[in-house]
């Protein structure tokens, strides 16, 4: 597994493209817990995200959950496919990125894959 991939305790993943750019999504475990997603509220291009703070929310039929940013930076791109097809997250959570962040100035508490796997086993 690549060294660029990290996870958070709140079940997001972040894959660094370079030092200051990364893609963010939610984990396979998170999508399984949430069940069938019916809508995803995403930020807009140019919005600032802050490590540890909510930048999006995901809706299932009877619940809504926050998605927290693993890093601080500026939203460079938004995966607009998710707006029409939230089920993409259910199909392959690691591929269905939410946002691409640039100018990353700060990282939150990040876990390696091994650490994250251990966390969800508990």
């Amino acid at each position, binding site marked *: 597994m690549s060294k660029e991939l990290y996870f958070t305790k709140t079940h997001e993943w972040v894959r660094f493209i370079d030092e200051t750019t990364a893609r963010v999504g939610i984990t396979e475990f998170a999508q399984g817990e949430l069940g069938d997603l*019916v*809508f995803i509220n995403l930020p807009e291009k140019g919005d600032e995200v802050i490590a540890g703070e909510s930048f999006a*929310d995901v*809706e*299932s*039929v*009877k*619940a*809504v959950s926050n998605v927290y940013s693993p890093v601080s930076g500026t939203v460079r791109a938004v995966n607009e496919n998710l707006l029409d097809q939230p089920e993409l997250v259910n199909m392959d959570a690691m591929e269905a990125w939410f946002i691409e962040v640039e100018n990353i100035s700060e990282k939150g508490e990040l876990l390696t894959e091994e650490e994250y796997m251990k966390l969800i086993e508990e």
Partner: protein
Amino acid sequence: MGTYVPNTRDEQQLMLEAIGLSSMDDLFSTIPKEVRLNASLDIPKGMSEMEVSVKMRKIAGMNKVYDTVFRGCGAYRHYIPAIVKQVTSKEEFITAYTPYQAEISQGILQSIFEYQTMICELTGMQVSNASVYDGATAAAEAVIMSREKSRKKALVSATVNPMTIETIRTYLDGTDMEMAIIPEKDGLTDIEGLMSMLGDDTACVLIQQPNFYGLLEDGDAVGGILAGTDIKYIMSCNPISLGILKTPAEYGADIAVGEGQPLGIGLSFGGPYLGFMAATEKLMRRLPGRIVGETTDSQGRRAFVLTLQAREQHIRREKASSNICSNQALCAMTAAVYLAAMGREGLAQAAKLSMSKAHYLADRLCEIDGYELVYKGEFFNEFVTTVNTDADKVLDILSEHGILGGYPLDGKHKGCLLWCATEVNTREEIDNMVRILKDIK
């Protein structure tokens, strides 16, 4: 005393014993003594059903039911087809809860789905919610819907019903949105004034069609100005008028709202009424309140459910854009039955009749010295006139004849009356009133 408790005293005692208690008082032993009520409630002794009926009829008798009404101003007496009252009196509709259990609530869900479709047809919009409290709260919710991160200012025309404006003010007070009033000119929204007020912080523009004075606004001009901008165009409209008048969608509106009371709901001293809300598909997820959607069950049968619920308060809690839980389900059904009964032609007829009677009324009133139309613009079924003497005196005399005259305006129009006619007003009624008015010195 009357009661709806079916269990007899003996049965109650047996049930108490079954759970190991000896008296009703024991049931409340967990309530701290200091908050227990030691006295009896200060409410008269209960009554038999017959006594209640007599007493309530006496109270109702203290009100005056006018034979003839020439007053509108947001509440209209239209003809209500007999089928409407019968259908909506069914116990299963009256006593049901919100249709959360879809499997046993298909009737109510389908009725709302049909209502939503009819509201979309009336307004030309793509999506409608299941309704809100009334026209004013629908307008306030629409204004809140239009909020964007950088756009928080609502521009509301001075020609919108003042009660709607006041309600919006209350809703926005204390939030990060604000309201500014677009001035009026000759009884219409001042288009140049509007243009000068538009800015990067403008969230929406709200106009009413026909407006408070009954006049037809230049909705196309507003639509033209707002086209291509991020500013939401909200139009509040009279649903009966939409039988013949241009739809909010044709004007380019993003959100259509209005008071649904004219659609088969009685005057009812102001409530319950019906606030309808419809919007473009783009704004679907911003609509507040309940929405019914069509889907299928496991066997592929057509099914209806409350949908897009994650927008709502019971899930989103403090992040919900509105706190509304209920809709006016029974009133929405009333409107749907009314529209089904009237049909396209019937509704157009009601609209044309209302407009024709109002124009005849205006013509006849203006025959009287001192009565003149205050505004020259085209109107639907309401209009403002001057009065040749004290307006209150005129209204008192009409009242003695069983006629509720025009609404006495305040402020700069003090002394003027806002008149209204609908299909229920006959030529005879109008001629009769004009005769009475001519005799007032």
